């Protein structure tokens, strides 16, 4: 079975996120005065072969721990698309 996994990697809350700040300022400059905070991260889509959704998620988490996210500066979320 092939599963599509969506990984979202975000800068850890509390760490300076200059990229998010720059986008926030740009949105304000465009007139989106309602903008409070912006954070910019990274989305990774992976198609994986696995026996179950749980297995697909577990493997994707391992991929995050080993490569896709930096444990010092980033947090990640993993979502497996419905079968």
């Amino acid at each position: 079975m092939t599963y599509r996994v969506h990984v979202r990697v975000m800068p850890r809350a509390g760490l300076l996120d200059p990229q998010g700040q720059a986008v926030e300022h740009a949105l304000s400059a465009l007139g989106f005065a309602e903008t409070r905070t912006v954070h910019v991260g990274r989305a990774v889509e992976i198609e994986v072969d696995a026996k179950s959704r749980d297995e697909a998620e577990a493997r994707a988490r391992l991929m995050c721990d080993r490569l896709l996210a930096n444990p010092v500066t980033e947090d990640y979320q993993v979502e497996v698309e419905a079968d």
Partner: protein
Amino acid sequence: MVRVAVVRFPGSNCDEDARRGAEQSGAEAYFVWHRDTSLQGADVVVLPGGFSYGDYLRSGAIARFSPVMQAVQAHAAAGGSVIGICNGFQILCEAHLLPGALMRNAGLTFVSKPVDCMVERTDTVFTWAFERKTPVRIPVAHGEGRYVADAETLARLEGEGQVVLRYLKSSPGTEGNPNMSSNDIAGICNAAGTVVGIMPHPERVVDPKLGSADGLLFMRSLAGVRALAGVGK
């Protein structure tokens, strides 16, 4: 003669400067390709600056898994000397050979200019030729050089004297910390001083003809590692 292996990754661009600087300082310096699995009897390994693998994902994240890095890990684990400059420092952090991480510069721009730094620790493989804490002016050239680590790690680095190089604040002609690194950190080492990573590029300033030779003592340090008992091999 000290054998210095300079690792070439796809995207390395300070490899020739590093090899030349080491050779000029008396070492036998040669290149090792990132797919190689042997360091050919190196005493010192240099991970040079550049943009390995196009900085895809994160700087250094993919280079860390190059075949040659297994040999580098083993070399470091056995007490061998490993030096990372700029992208090499990023790779050392990604490979967990040094703690912390290097994030996007606070100003978001690529910073390329000379900076003033203090050589804070002089019993490492990369700084022992400095006899005491010494100010140097050497160039930085990076977009992701903001050193970040959790509070506990920073306290340990400071407490154990593992900060090797620190940006000097308010020095005339430079603006101090160019990227808002924590504690103005420009370079760190492991506890033994055998693994060193720094963001500035001493290999670019080894000849007065190039405007400065402030980088010379770094290259002499790595080229003469055996001369220093207790550090490196």
